[in-house]
């Protein structure tokens, strides 16, 4: 089982820098807030927050959002989610919310996150930023800011490593082990 590296540390840094500029460009300013889907999405959002601060001198509100209790498979799978209460220090009411995640695949997490955001208030607009779009959508969801498009098959696995968790940055594709 070999991994093919798509983005290394420098490429991830470049990608996030570009995405930070894109958000400011597209929202015409820095009047937006960032919400990252826990746990990796939150780390991406924090990095974007840092980059926007670095380039534009504005510290935009940023927090993580837990989608545990909003998942669509809770009832069909009947399991108890391990979730945290969403209580960001800022209001999303009337704001442009940039939702951040590491990998966009079926779109189900995004649907759950939208529901979670609406429990916090009624934003003016929700935009979607992802480090990587691997295709395979099962929901009518499309991202506004994409780091890298990587069309994959269901048998492949996207491995995102972030230095906050794994100690290094990197993004690779692994083919799933063959079924015996």
């Amino acid at each position, binding site marked *: 089982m070999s991994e093919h590296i798509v983005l290394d540390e420098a490429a991830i840094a470049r990608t996030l820098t570009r995405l930070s500029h894109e958000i400011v460009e597209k929202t015409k300013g820095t009047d937006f807030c960032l919400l990252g889907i826990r746990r990796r999405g939150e780390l991406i959002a924090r990095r974007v927050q840092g980059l926007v601060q670095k380039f534009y001198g504005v510290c935009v509100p940023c927090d993580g959002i837990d989608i545990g209790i909003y998942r669509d498979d809770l009832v069909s799978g*009947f399991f*108890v*989610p391990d979730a945290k*209460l969403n209580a960001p220090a800022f209001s999303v009411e009337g704001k442009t919310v940039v939702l951040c995640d590491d990998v966009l695949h079926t779109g189900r997490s995004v649907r759950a996150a939208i529901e979670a955001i609406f429990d916090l208030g009624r934003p003016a607009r929700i935009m979607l930023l992802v480090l990587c779009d691997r295709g395979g959508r099962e929901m009518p969801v499309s991202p506004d800011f994409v780091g890298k498009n990587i069309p994959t098959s269901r048998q492949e696995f996207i491995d995102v490593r972030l230095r906050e968790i794994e100690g290094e940055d990197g993004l690779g594709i692994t083919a799933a082990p063959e079924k015996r």
Partner: protein
Amino acid sequence: MLGKDLLGLYDASVEDIQLILDTAVGMKKLLTQNLKKLPHLQGRTVTTLFYENSTRTRCSFELAAKYLGAGTVNISASSSSVQKGETLIDTGYTLDAMKNDVIVIRHPMGGAPHLLARHVKASVVNGGDGMNEHPTQALLDFYTMREKFGSFKGLKVAILGDIKHSRVAKSNLFGLTKLGAEVVMYSPATLMPQGVERMGAKVARSREEALAGANVVMGLRIQLERMHGGLFPSLAEYAKYYGVGEEQLKLADKDCIVMHPGPVNRGVELTSDVIDADNSEITEQVLNGVAVRMALLFLLVKNRQGGEKNE
């Protein structure tokens, strides 16, 4: 696996008890964060059918059901057709016809939930039947003990108070002996039911013997409403010779916890100092009760869901 109903711990397996306790861990995690919005029982109805007074059990079941998204209906016998002479079984048929999913019943007669369970399609949960059992209270007691001590092996649980009239004492006894704990009971001879030794309890001959080295000290309420006079001279005398105060608690293990199923008669079975002390788990028990009942409703409905798909 857990069946259609939960009627008592006498028939429950250790696996069922552990499953409920394990599920409750996740529920408590959510509850402590004030996360009270789960979807699992959406579109389901939980009815509480109470033929006896209750604050915490009813409220606890109702909130547990609501936190899981269920609709709840409360029926008190004092303000229902029971007053017009409807039998329990007929009430059961009526509730079933209205498509209830779970019926929580409290009844002054032991065995009433078992009778109801045989006649309804809904899951029946025993919320206390006479002097027989109160399984969910015992389960929340187990949860509290497990949270504090990690396991039941070698745990000494001293139960003091009105054991004869207490369904909590019996459910605790049935469950704790299965789980491997030692249960020691102490009360005036008139309030000690016959044959508890045969069910696995150790009957202490003195308050000191009961408390010596105990890890858990559980007080039980003196149930005057079930007594018809003459079982002991006076509450003051009871408190003096059978109650637990700070002085008596020194005999127990230094890391012991104090529990009480409530409602408490302050200064009778436990003194106020003991009730409000740092090692008192009495309010924690109430929170654990909601978590345990959420877990139980969750598991019962999960079982039903599997059954309904097969129908």
